[in-house]
């Protein structure tokens, strides 16, 4: 795919249009009311600002990738640890959750006789096969997933906005009180909704963020115009509740397509991101050459498919543990970007001597939000344990890759 804008859209919107983000957005709309709309805009602004800072550094010759930037800032093994621990567990856990959600959606919206678990495995098989195609073609298919998911949300959002079921004054009613749930929703929206926008070409980041706003703003308004805020806030599938109210059975079918396409887009987007990380590790001499050459194309998709399949077959999706693990993996993902952001700010400070203090705003906000999410969660102890366990596993894996790489170097 030649167009960098399309490339950015394909990668950046993968996570954005997934059912995970749709749940966060729906619950936030319920908890915060219309305030979710400016908050989403603030999310886009925060990540846009931060992305520009990182981009400034990555455009220089000295740092051509995030891993190279991290390696020079915190060292080889910590950089490898953060890169591995932040993205591989997220891919496996998010894929497990998303595929199971897609399975239920397919079963309940399209074919009642088709087993949900069977559909989840079928989708896993198909998405794994997709990974064996040349990267160019994967991007094309990914763009199709993103386009279908985004278009579906947009259509429902615009239709729902044009046919409100409540008067405008009720829709724009400010919540009587902002509870702990509202704060938590605000943080989740601020941090998790935009987190994967980091992928792709950062030169076009603002365009991706703008597109996301264009899709989600009417959707939030339409959800509030058709569903009671309490219902949106407490639902585990607010997107389905809203689409049914907006357009009836047709709305459910459109949203069903969005859920399946969004899940495919998130899985493929995260897979591409992990493969990119493997290549970068190899280019930075932090992993052997075969990881970049054949490993990331042939071995990696199979290993991921086996891991996700094992998670689904052992019933992880039916366990509350999955949610805590997934939240921990998302926190690690944010932690990685906090480190990348701070590293970029420190490089700018070092190179330019004088620097605007505003550059610190985004990474400091990200770090504070990350800490707030972690410590306000009722599962904060477990989450901390999982984060540490994943970091330890990541460090072992990073050290192993560096060791194999150094052995290969000695032999050649």
């Amino acid at each position, binding site marked *: 795919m030649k167009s960098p804008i399309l490339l950015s859209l394909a990668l950046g919107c993968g996570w954005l249009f997934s059912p995970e983000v749709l749940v966060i957005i729906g619950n936030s709309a319920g908890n915060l009311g219309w305030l979710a709309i400016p908050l989403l805009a603030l999310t886009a602004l925060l990540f846009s600002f931060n992305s520009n800072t990182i981009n400034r550094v990555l455009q220089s010759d000295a740092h051509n990738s995030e891993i190279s930037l991290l390696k020079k800032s915190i060292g080889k093994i910590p950089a490898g640890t953060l890169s591995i621990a932040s993205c591989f567990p997220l891919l496996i856990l998010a894929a497990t959750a998303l595929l199971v*959600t897609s399975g239920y959606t397919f079963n*309940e919206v399209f074919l009642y006789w088709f087993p*949900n*678990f069977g559909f989840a*495995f079928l989708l896993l098989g198909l998405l794994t096969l997709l990974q064996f195609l040349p990267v160019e073609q994967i991007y094309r298919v990914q763009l199709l997933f993103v386009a279908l998911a985004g278009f579906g949300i947009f259509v429902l959002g615009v239709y729902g906005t044009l046919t409100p079921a409540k008067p405008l004054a009720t829709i724009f009613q400010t919540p009587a009180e902002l509870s702990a749930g509202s704060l938590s929703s605000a943080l989740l929206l601020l941090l998790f909704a935009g987190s994967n926008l980091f992928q792709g070409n950062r030169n076009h980041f603002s365009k991706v963020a703008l597109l996301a706003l264009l899709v989600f703003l009417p959707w939030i308004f339409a959800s509030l115009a058709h569903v009671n805020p309490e219902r949106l806030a407490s639902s585990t599938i607010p997107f389905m509740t809203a689409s049914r109210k907006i357009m009836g059975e047709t709305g459910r079918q459109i949203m069903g397509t969005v859920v399946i396409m969004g899940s495919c887009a998130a899985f493929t987007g995260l897979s591409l991101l992990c493969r990119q990380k493997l290549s970068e590790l190899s280019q930075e001499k932090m992993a052997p050459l075969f990881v970049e050459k054949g490993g990331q194309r042939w071995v990696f998709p*199979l290993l991921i498919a086996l891991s996700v399949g094992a998670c689904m077959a052992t019933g992880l999706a*039916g366990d509350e543990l999955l949610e805590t693990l997934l939240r921990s993996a998302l926190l690690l993902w944010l932690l990685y970007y906090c480190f990348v952001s701070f590293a970029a700010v420190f490089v700018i400070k070092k190179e330019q001597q004088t620097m605007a203090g505003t550059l610190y705003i985004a990474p400091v906000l990200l770090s504070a939000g990350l800490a707030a999410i972690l410590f306000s969660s009722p599962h904060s102890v477990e989450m901390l344990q999982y984060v540490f366990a994943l970091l330890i596993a990541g460090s072992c894996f990073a050290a192993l890759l560096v060791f194999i790489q150094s052995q290969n170097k000695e032999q050649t």
Partner: protein
Amino acid sequence: MKRILLLLSIFFFVGTSQLIAADVPTMSKDELKSHLGSDKVAILDVRSGRDWSSSEFMIKGAIRAAGSDIATWSKDYPKDKTLVLYCA
């Protein structure tokens, strides 16, 4: 490519085989339909995690119960009552 397809096929069947659980007596959809509303049958939705949170529907009259707490809540039902549990 053949190997990959073979691996994926095995993987698919191993995964779905869990659906065909063995020793527990099962009730067909039609059989359950005929018992809906009966006092002699209690339908319990023991889905949890994503199995619960991703689903839009619940069988009419079903009560949510935690599968892990079966020892606790099963005492609340008379012994002659048929308990129908569904988890997916």
